[in-house]
């Protein structure tokens, strides 16, 4: 006569962290790209928070509406936010095409993945082109790393040269800090976009080579997609803090 009582120790533990299975149900590479993006988010946060601190520390600041008011090939002045609005739309759009590529990858539709990835790459290139025009315009006005339009001018002329960019008091230092931080932060973002385009092209050629079809999963599209969304996410913040606030 035996009573079979299972002791606590013999009980099979089947929680997510008891071994035998992946507790997050995620593939290694995908976890790693997430951790990379978290650290990259810290870099961009540090840049933008420093920009905020500078703006807060200066008694006056440049008026973004007066610096960014051109639409290349259309008008040189009087249209704030329109061109950057187009850039923002392009980047959000390319984010959508990325999700559509990932979605097609889940259904193992090679042709669809190829189509959406090509749209994504096109969006990225268009964004970079717009940014090049924006940089060129600012550089033409005299903004660049370590200089603003009044750099090198006589002290008595500085206020007059900088007057078009300020609504309140005019400050040489504020214009200089704005210039430095604008080119550093949008430049760093632009490098991310460039790398993203490169990664997208690599993954597109792997798709065309049937690498993922043989592997049985389009997970790599998802990983590059995560990076691409992150680039879009950073732009959302850059747009707010440089152009709106």
């Amino acid at each position: 006569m035996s009573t079979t009582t299972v002791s606590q120790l013999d009980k099979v533990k089947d929680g997510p962290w008891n071994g035998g299975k992946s507790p997050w149900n995620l593939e290694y590479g995908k976890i790693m790209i997430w951790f990379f993006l978290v650290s990259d988010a810290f870099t961009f946060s540090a840049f933008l928070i420093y920009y905020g601190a500078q703006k807060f520390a200066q008694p006056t600041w440049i008026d973004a509406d007066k610096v960014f008011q051109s639409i290349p090939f259309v008008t040189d002045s009087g249209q704030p936010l329109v061109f950057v609005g187009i850039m923002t739309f392009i980047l959000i759009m390319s984010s959508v095409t990325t999700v559509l590529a990932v979605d097609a990858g889940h259904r193992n539709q090679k042709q669809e993945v190829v189509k959406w990835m090509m749209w994504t790459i096109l969006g990225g290139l268009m964004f970079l082109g717009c940014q090049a025009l924006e940089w060129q315009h600012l550089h033409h006005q005299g903004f660049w790393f370590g200089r603003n339009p009044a750099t090198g001018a006589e002290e008595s002329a500085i206020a007059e040269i900088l007057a078009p960019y300020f609504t309140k008091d005019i400050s040489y230092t504020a214009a200089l800090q704005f210039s430095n931080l604008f080119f550093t932060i949008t430049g760093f973002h632009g490098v991310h976009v460039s790398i993203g385009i490169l990664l997208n092209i690599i993954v597109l050629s792997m798709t065309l080579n049937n690498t993922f079809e043989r592997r049985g999963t389009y997970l790599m599209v998802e990983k590059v997609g995560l990076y691409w969304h992150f680039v879009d996410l950073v732009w959302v913040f850059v747009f707010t803090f440089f152009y709106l606030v």
Partner: protein
Amino acid sequence: MSHHNDNVAVGHEQEGMDKKGIWRIFFILLALTALEFLIALGFVHHWGIIQKGMFVNVVYIILTLMKAYYIVAYFMHLKFEKSGFIVTCSVAFIFIIYFIILLLIEGGFLAGALQSHPVYPH
């Protein structure tokens, strides 16, 4: 590579986004961006109903954070991951909040210091 991951659901969505869902999120993002433009171009710049300042900046930042949420949660699919992973990725951003507070204090000090000891004379 995939044969290392037999116990991971690779290539199959447990739940998440279909095409309709993707376009829904796109239109939300578009609407939020359009709202930002309406405030910036319309209310502030064109009609002059709202002055540039603290209030409108807070509105912009809230709209930005909403956009960030939709991108991270739906496009980057974080909302549909295991809760442990969501916490792991998001809890680190406490340091960013701390950093913002730190640099606002620092900036406030500098604002006073630069008034009495200007770096450049202009």
